[in-house]
């Protein structure tokens, strides 16, 4: 996993979900572990689009279960 992308993703998650950075782990689930509701997920996706300058389709975003899924998606987009 790309550490730099993970750090940036973590910063966005901390900002949007109001969680502590140490609680954001690759295996953290957005719903169960990070307490994100559907609006949080939308805000998070829009913030990620801005941060990484990528477009994230709803069909892609639906597949984001845990933090590592997002990092892998961004890695693939940026590759």
């Amino acid at each position, binding site marked *: 996993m790309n550490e730099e992308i993970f750090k940036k993703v973590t910063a966005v998650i901390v900002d949007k979900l109001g969680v502590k950075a140490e609680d954001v782990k690759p295996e953290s689930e957005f719903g169960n572990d990070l307490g994100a*509701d559907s*609006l949080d997920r939308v*805000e998070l996706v*829009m913030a990620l689009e801005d941060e990484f300058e990528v477009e994230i389709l709803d069909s892609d975003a639906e597949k984001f279960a845990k933090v590592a899924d997002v990092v892998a998606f961004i890695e693939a987009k940026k590759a």
Partner: protein
Amino acid sequence: MGKLTGKKAIVTGASRGIGLAIATKLASEGADVAILSTSVKEDLAAKLSAELGVQVKSYACNVADSETVQSVFKQIIADMGTVDILVNNAGITRDGLLMRMKDEDFDAVIATNLRSVFLCTRAVARTMMGKRTGRIINISSINALHGQAGQANYAAAKAGIIGMTRSNAMEFASRGITVNAIAPGFIGTDMTAAMDDATKEKYAAQIPLGRIGKPEDVANAVAFLASDDACYITGQILGVDGGLNA
């Protein structure tokens, strides 16, 4: 001190009629106001700023056009620093009996009166969600609740606003953003001046409070819904109609 001191408001269709009364009232309660209209009204903005001691700035915006709304709202939010209150007031009429109503008359009214509410609400949603507070007030019409011959397009758009108001209220509730609609009755403006005398007389005779409404009557209700006093009210349709809908 006004009850909206320090708030930042956006009012669409604000150059005259009900929209102008709303912008004036919000400004008189201490809010800085971005007034939107089809063309820039610098003199009007300067006059309101000087008279009321707040920042009032005019922007030209075709509220039915997605790209325009996105760019203008981005500019407004940058200029004001944030947005606390959105009043979706812009509206037009293209009255005519349905059998003779042209496609473009239907489409124009839906675009300006209904699509604009979607576009402008979306353009402020992110900022308000981030703040965990916000006030969205949509101007519907009594003709969304009652039929009115010759207004198939207008009534459909205004009824659509009511559905959108309730849905958006549900969607934004968890973020402290309230969404309400006002359904004005017969208010004396340029728009109603275009109605024929027979229709006007028929309406006036039916108003329980015995008079045609003033734009300020609507503006006062908007100011209340925009204030902290209304923080527990969302998803409501408030008639400001002299009792027409009682």
